[in-house]
């Protein structure tokens, strides 16, 4: 190729721009914001009968991650479970009051999703459940993998 011919050559950027925009659209559509609240380092137990939670309520479920040491994580941070659940329950009650939905028997109409590592002792799990029950949560969803992860 001569120097003259390469001098005035301009690459056509339009197809590559099209391609990049298509890739961006793909990643924007599949981005998972809920993943931020999950601790993906946990090894959940495997149960074939576990089904994705069908929650169509307007309020977000309370999601708690319990690691092998029994520490509770929410949104990537270690939290004091009593204070965290108390704060979430208060906020929820305020939200319910503001939309004019009084509590029945002081029961919160929002589920708690517990994602616990498979090695968490019952003592720790039960403590978290009791803390939630004290604040009025009665619907619980215990998380499990539907199939063994392939690495």
């Amino acid at each position, binding site marked *: 190729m001569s120097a003259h011919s390469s001098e005035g050559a301009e690459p056509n950027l339009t197809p590559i721009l099209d391609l990049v925009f298509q890739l961006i659209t793909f990643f924007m559509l599949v981005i*998972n914001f809920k993943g931020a609240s999950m601790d993906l380092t946990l090894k959940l137990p495997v149960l074939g009968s576990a089904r994705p939670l069908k929650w169509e309520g307007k309020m977000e479920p309370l999601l708690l991650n319990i690691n092998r040491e029994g520490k509770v994580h929410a949104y990537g941070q270690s939290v004091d479970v009593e204070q965290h659940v108390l704060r979430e329950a208060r906020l929820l009650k305020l939200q319910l009051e503001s939309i004019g939905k009084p509590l029945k028997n002081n029961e919160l109409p929002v589920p708690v999703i517990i994602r*616990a590592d498979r090695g968490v002792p*019952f003592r720790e799990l039960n403590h978290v*459940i009791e803390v939630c029950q004290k604040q009025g949560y009665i*619907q619980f969803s215990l998380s499990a993998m539907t199939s063994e992860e392939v690495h």
Partner: protein
Amino acid sequence: MRRHSRRHRKSSSVDLNLAAMLDMAFQLLAFFILTFRPAPIEGQLAMHLPPPIPVTNVKSDKPQTMGGDGSDISGLEKLDLYINANSLGEVSQIKVGMRPVVQGRLDASGIAALKRHMKEIFEIQQIPFDRIQLIVDDRLHYEELMKVVDICTQQVLPDGQKMQRISFVSATR
């Protein structure tokens, strides 16, 4: 956009500088690729977990009254499952009521025995238990507990609904 730029070029020969747009697009693409984490295939076992009844009040062979006011669920029975664990956090024994159903580890045969026994209670005998109370050893690991919970949630009540009313009690209390 391509058609538009071509038409534009013909009329006034203005060239769009696509390099800057491509730079920005690549930056966006890099962000989405780096933050991309596919959601795990996760499921849940949904349960209705009212606060448990103290074990000292248990008379599982007779109808009981449960709940704060007792009006809506009076006269119904609960089934007690005792789950003992070894030092490794594995199941060492499961008793349904007072009857030992699983001895040793909860392997496939243990799971089958427990399923059979629960089916006998709920479907064949049709005893109107509306709630299962798991009295669990503190050392039991979550994975082992979930196996038992899974069997419990598969039980069908006389009204055709799946069992969801399960409560947990620590065996050490």
